[in-house]
């Protein structure tokens, strides 16, 4: 029960931090983000959240002296990154989606080229 409550709060915090970053309009330090969040969260909490978001690929950062400045990643990029992670987690065995063609082992390349020429002759 407690764990679920904590997880929900973390998700909320991540959303709030992302919203604050978007609202800022320019790359922000953790301190600036914390101020936007009306100071209710501790500085370390905000910083940990930003690091986590960065690991998830939802924010990018650049060095500014001794601190980092964070900015939200483009929405489509973020969505693609999220999907990539979720699909990586699902693994090859139970993959949700099927590609048109899979990875080709190098030894199959000449075989495929020959078959393509074959097909072009028949076309």
């Amino acid at each position: 029960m407690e764990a679920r409550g904590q997880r929900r709060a973390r998700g909320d915090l991540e959303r709030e931090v992302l919203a604050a970053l978007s609202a800022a309009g320019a790359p922000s330090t953790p301190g600036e983000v914390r101020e936007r969040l009306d100071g209710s969260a501790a500085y370390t909490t905000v910083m940990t959240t930003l690091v986590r978001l960065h690991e998830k690929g939802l924010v990018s950062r650049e060095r500014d002296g001794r601190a980092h400045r964070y900015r939200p990643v483009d929405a489509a990029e973020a969505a693609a990154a999220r999907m990539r992670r979720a699909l990586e987690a699902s693994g090859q065995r139970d993959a949700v989606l099927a590609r048109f063609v899979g990875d080709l082992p190098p030894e199959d390349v000449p075989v495929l080229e020959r078959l393509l020429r074959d097909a072009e002759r028949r076309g």
Partner: protein
Amino acid sequence: MLYALQVPVVASLLLALAAPLVARRCPPRAAALVLAACAAGCAATTAVVLGLHAVVLLGQLPPVAALLGYDPGRFAHHVPVPPQASLLAVGVLGAGLARGAVLLRRRASALRAADDLCSRLGGRAGGVVVVEGGAEAFALPSRGGRVVVSRALLEALPEPEQEALLAHEHAHLGAHHDLVRAVTAWSAALDPLLVGVPSAVRYATERWADEAAVVAVGGDRPLVARAVARAGLVGAAAPGDRGDWTAVALAGGGGDVVRRVRALLGSRPRGGRPLAAAGALCLVALLVVGGHAVEDVAEVVQHVRSGGQDGEPGLATADLVRGAGDRVLSELAPGRAP
């Protein structure tokens, strides 16, 4: 009842052995559907038979016996399996259900991510969305379905082959191949003996979509063959430049590409009837075995509850169900005469 598990086990093993051959040699639509259906049948029968062991174990517990009004000792005496076997069976079932639950969660999160991506990419339901980066093409089943294609791949194909590619992906959406593959994956999670069946079904659905594309482009098999071959070579030529889709765990092994092109350059597959008949037979056998096991346990329960008297003629299961139904009805409407 102890022997009831033999049939699903043997069926699962035979299915695992036969699946790659069936996927390769038989007409793809029949292969995909029959393999998926038989896998589901094996998993369901295995689950039912293992579940009966749970029923049998529970029935020997004094509180349950007190509630239902029979002597737990007599029940234990008439049960044809030792409790250790039942415990093992329940453990195996539990492990299978846990695997299935993990699979469900992973797929749910993957589908949510795909759904999110779908809404961000925009486009209309059933439409095509072109993305920068990568050399991929796949069908997103969420939100009415969309086909996602990398610009690089699309531009590498001449227009007729582009049509073939899109027809292939639309076939995946129209025939709900994601559901067929999901059912197979869950069956393999419940019944781990079904090794290799999910990947066989995956290959069969790819071939199925290939054949559907052939029909869509007017029967030109070499055209679709060229589309598949060229797409494979495009992907192989630029391995480093896949963008966001590089590490995406999408299905479709490499060895399949050559096999698919060869199959497309061959003749049209025909005649799925023998396979369908074999599949139906397998399912009937599994149903009979499952039903038999249920009836065995129902007979024991009825025998014990009736105090050792011989049961009435007819199915014990039917009697028990009828009796339970009567009891429920009398609870709900006490005034009515049964």
